[in-house]
Structure formats: structure tokens, C-alpha cells
């Protein structure tokens, strides 16, 4: 019987041996990694009345004080963080402290997620781990921490095939935005999305993140990309244990298949308020005034994104508040080595410690009523910034061009 990669990963992790699953079945699994970030840490990690004496395996758990916050922004937050550090030390759990960067990208960069792995982490963009052939889902409740076991309802898989090459000035962040705009946020509710096609498999791993992270913006439960030579090369030196690549059988059943060609995206794409499916070609929104730009976020903070932004900003000056936030320390170091930080500083932009940016204005970059930001994170939904403030989404190059003009601008004029 043929299976999809996600079905196989769930079967491989079943607590009781099973040799078949179908969509809709419930499976109890033993997971490879769980964790949570500091937004949860603001709540008592141990609910009232419960003290954890031992977790299932402290080496398979991470606490990320670095995801939504680049640094404690108040006395109370600093105290919360300190309480969390002390609590984690007692249980032997590793803390990824402030400044280390975006949870999910660290998990992939550091080989914590690897081909075939099953990870349950408390944040919706855990879907991103499909970029390295792992299965990631959100949610990390107390029972998982205590037992290492997690239940799953097996999702049907939708396959999204993207062939071909992009046109000049069109980036992966434009391609995924185009797809969300075309299919809408409910295209794949509760489905696994397997990304495939020559375009996807031509991309370096960090440029696959926009697709696997924004799987959740299409309603998806988890994502998957078959590990290829590019994946395995990128994982060298990162994964410290043997692993077995899992992939869908050639005759596996996909509930739906969507076909795209990267060249059908003819213009940079911009998501407009109030949500990511309100996507427009840039020609329809050119000149929209913007007060603040952020280049960062889980879908726009890789070294490739930083290079694209720097190419536009080099030798030019920004007109509005511009925040540049490399996704992780690894990206920050590489920006330094390549001279990109100098380009950013020379342009008048401000570089901030690694974290997930202003896609939610938790930590910094808050907006006044009536203000508008543009960023290259995954979401611009109502409620993610102050009431009466708005967000547009675009590629790192579009964000950089917008910073220069103080209004939504076409990056192709600067390339």
C-alpha cells in the first residue's frame, strides 16, 4: 500500500507498531522534539497546582526566549525570562536565550529537525520543518513534556507542484504570496502540504522556508519537501545523528494536486490588509504611503533575503523607519562577514538582534493608530498590531525599495 511522506513519518513514530494509516485515523506517536517560546513563558509554565519533577527527555526539549522578543522589553519580561531560565536549568532543558533568533530557523539550522523527524513545538510556524524533510506541527502541551507522546489525526496530503523559473525581480516570497492570493487561506485546511516541482527543488534550503512556513497561511497542518541533494548538503555538519530520509511513494494518494509555473508570477506580489489572501500585483498598490519597513521574519530573514535587501539598499538612503532583523545569529554573522551590516548602516536602516520581527508587534516596532508598516514576514492579519494600524507584505527586495521611497515601490527599478 502506498503512503505519503507524512503518513510514513506518523507510522514510523507510532507508539504501537502499525503498518498502515489512512487520513482521519488517530495515531499516538513518540516525538523527537518539543519546545515552546517565550510568549507561552509569560503564562506559568507549570499550571497552578503542578510542579514538574522530570520531563520525558530534557535533550529533546527546547525553550526559546529568542523568538518573539529580541531582548526583554520591560522589567516584568526580564523577570519572566529569568524565572524561565532557572526553571529550565533545574529540569536540564536547554534555553535558546535572547538574541539567538527565530525558533524554527534555529531548529533547522542546528539539525534538531532532520529528515524523517517528528516535532511538536508551540508555535504555528512549526510547519516550516518540512523544508528539511521533517514533520512539524504546533502545540506542545504539558502531557507531551511529561510523556514524549503526542496524538495526531492523520491529515490528507495536498501536493503543490511549482515548475519553471521566476522572472527578473521575482523572489520565492513573491511566489508563495501569489499562491496564497490565488487559492486563499482555506485552500488546504487541516491538510499536509507537500511542495514539489523543479522550482522548489532548485531553491537553497532557506528560500524554501517561505513555502513551508506559509503552509499554515493556506490552512495547512504541516508541510513537507522531499529532501534532495541541496537539502542533504545543507544539513551536513548540522545534524549530529544518523537519519533516514522519508519520501512519498510514487503512487501515494494526494487528495488534491495544484500546479503552478513560477513564471506565471509576472510582478512582485504585495499582501494588503486585512489578511494574506488579499494579494495584489505591485502595480495596483504602487505609491501607497508606508511609515515603517521591517526586513526580517521567518519568511524573510535568511542570508539570501539579507543579500537581496542589501542589493537594493547599497549606496541609497532610506526615507522611513527601517528595521533590519537577520533571522538568527548564524545569519547575523554571515551578514557581518559579507559587509551587509555596513550597507544597512550606511543606508540609515537600523539593525536589531535576531528575533521574528514586527509581523506581530510584541517586542518593538509598534505602530501608532493609522500607521502602516510593510514587512516580509508571513502575516498581516487584524489583531497582530495596534488597532487602527495596518500591514502590507512583500519580498525583502520590495520592502527595501519601499524603505527608500517611503511608499510601496517596485524593486525592479533598483536591480
Amino acid at each position, binding site marked *: 500500500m502506498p503512503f505519503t511522506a507524512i503518513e510514513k513519518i506518523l507510522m514510523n513514530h507510532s507508539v504501537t507498531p502499525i503498518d498502515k494509516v489512512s487520513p482521519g485515523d*488517530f495515531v499516538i506517536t513518540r516525538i523527537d522534539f518539543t519546545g515552546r517560546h517565550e*510568549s507561552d513563558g*509569560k503564562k506559568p509554565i507549570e*499550571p497552578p*497546582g*503542578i*510542579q*514538574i*519533577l*522530570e*520531563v520525558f527527555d530534557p535533550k529533546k526539549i527546547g525553550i526559546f526566549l529568542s523568538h518573539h522578543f529580541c531582548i526583554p522589553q520591560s522589567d*516584568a519580561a526580564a523577570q519572566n525570562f529569568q524565572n524561565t531560565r532557572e526553571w529550565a536549568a533545574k529540569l536540564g532543558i536547554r534555553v535558546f536565550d535572547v538574541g539567538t533568533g527565530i525558533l524554527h530557523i534555529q531548529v533547522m539550522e542546528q539539525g534538531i529537525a532532520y529528515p524523517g523527524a517528528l516535532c511538536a513545538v*508551540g*508555535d*504555528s510556524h512549526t510547519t516550516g520543518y518540512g523544508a528539511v524533510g521533517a514533520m512539524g*506541527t*504546533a*502545540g506542545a*502541551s*504539558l*502531557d507531551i513534556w*511529561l*510523556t514524549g507522546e503526542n*496524538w495526531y*489525526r492523520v*491529515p490528507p496530503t495536498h501536493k503543490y507542484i511549482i515548475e519553471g523559473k521566476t522572472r527578473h525581480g521575482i523572489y520565492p516570497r513573491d511566489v508563495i504570496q501569489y499562491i496564497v492570493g490565488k487559492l*486563499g*487561506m*482555506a485552500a488546504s*485546511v*487541516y491538510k499536509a502540504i507537500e511542495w514539489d516541482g523543479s522550482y522548489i527543488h532548485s531553491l537553497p534550503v532557506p528560500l524554501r522556508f517561505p513555502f513551508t512556513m506559509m503552509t*499554515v*497561511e493556506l*490552512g*495547512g*497542518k504541516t508541510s513537507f519537501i522531499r529532501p534532495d541533494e541541496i537539502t542533504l548538503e545543507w544539513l551536513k555538519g548540522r545534524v549530529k545523528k544518523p537519519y533516514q530520509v522519508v519520501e512519498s511513494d510514487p503512487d501515494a494518494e494526494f487528495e488534491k494536486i495544484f500546479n503552478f509555473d513560477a513564471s506565471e508570477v509576472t510582478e512582485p506580489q504585495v499582501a494588503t490588509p486585512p*489578511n494574506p*489572501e488579499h494579494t495584489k500585483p505591485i502595480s495596483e498598490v504602487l505609491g501607497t504611503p508606508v511609515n515603517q519597513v521591517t526586513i526580517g521574519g521567518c519568511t524573510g530573514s535568511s542570508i539570501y533575503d539579507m543579500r537581496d535587501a542589501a542589493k537594493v539598499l547599497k549606496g541609497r538612503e532610506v526615507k522611513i523607519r527601517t528595521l533590519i532583523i537577520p533571522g538568527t545569529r548564524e545569519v547575523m554573522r554571515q551578514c557581518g562577514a559579507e559587509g551587509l551590516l555596513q550597507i544597512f548602516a550606511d543606508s540609515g536602516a537600523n539593525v536589531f538582534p535576531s528575533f521574528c520581527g514586527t509581523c*506581530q*508587534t*510584541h517586542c518593538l516596532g509598534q505602530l501608532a493608530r493609522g500607521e502602516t508598516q510593510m514587512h516580509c514576514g508571513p*502575516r498581516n*492579519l*487584524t*489583531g*497582530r*498590531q*495596534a*488597532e487602527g494600524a495596518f500591514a502590507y507584505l512583500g519580498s525583502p527586495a520590495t520592502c527595501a525599495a519601499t524603505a527608500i521611497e517611503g511608499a510601496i515601490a517596485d524593486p525592479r527599478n533598483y536591480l
Partner: protein
Amino acid sequence: MQGEEWIVEGNVWRVGDNVNTESIYSTQWHGKKEVVLAHLGELVIPDFPKKVKQGDIWVAGVNFACSSSRDVASLLKEKGIGAILCHSSSRNNFRNAVDAGIPCFEIGDEVKKISMGDRVRVNVRTGEIKNLTTGAEIKAQPYPDFLMETLEAGGVIPKILSRKSEYKIKVT
């Protein structure tokens, strides 16, 4: 609760498709629970936080509680909501609802038979739903036994507390 019926009956608070978690629980209220509860849901239904009553029912369209995984299910429960009915739920919300001990039934297009303000009765164990205002009857897929057990316990935390000897925890 074994053997007893679990009935939720109340008035309906109705929202549309693709209602995201942040529009129910906005980032601007983050970190202050009393503020969150005072404002919960007001961006989508202005009256909701002031007028919701114990046992009321939250009814949504496609892809309910999409976007971030912040737990609106437990907050809706805390405000008095006894059950969530929707066309389809985001995966994160389906999970959060079980963890919080609040039933969430996905009923597809049948959800169109329920409007704002209707009186609805939900039999949580059987998945039988009746719109008492219109007479419409809807049958939802019941939860499997192992999830029903968590729901009946009141969620993951009460379930852990009820079996504390199985976990390495100290009850304080």
C-alpha cells in the same frame, strides 16, 4: 461523567470564514489576562465580551481560528462558551480545544443552518446538534473515546491531575 449526558444549550455567537486567532485575542492585549478577557472577541463581534452567557455557543465558518496557534479555545471557554461549532477548524484550534476541554465540532456546510442569536443544543457525546430556533437537526462526527476522555476531564491539565501517579509531577 460516565453514563451521564453532556448537553450544551445556549445562544449562538456567529462569525464567518477564516476568522483568525488574533482577531479574537489581539496582540495588543497580550500578557494581561484580565484585559484579554475583557476584550476577547470584540474585534469580530463588538458585544460579545460584555453579553456572552454561560453555555452559549460559538459558531464559525471555514478555517476557524486560523493563523497563530494562540489558544482562543480556552479563553472562549473561560468566557462561558460551552461548545464551538464550525465548518472546519484550523488544526491548532482543534488541538487547543481538546487541551482546554471544550468540544469543537466540524460540521461542514451544515453550519449554514445556524445564525447569530439562534438557540442551539449540542449533545457532546453523540455529536447530535439541534437548532431549537429553526428545528434543523445536524449530526456531527463524535470524538473518539480517548479524546472524549480528555474533554470530559476538562482538558489536558485536569486529566493529568486525575492520574497524577502516572506522571513525574508533584501536586502542590
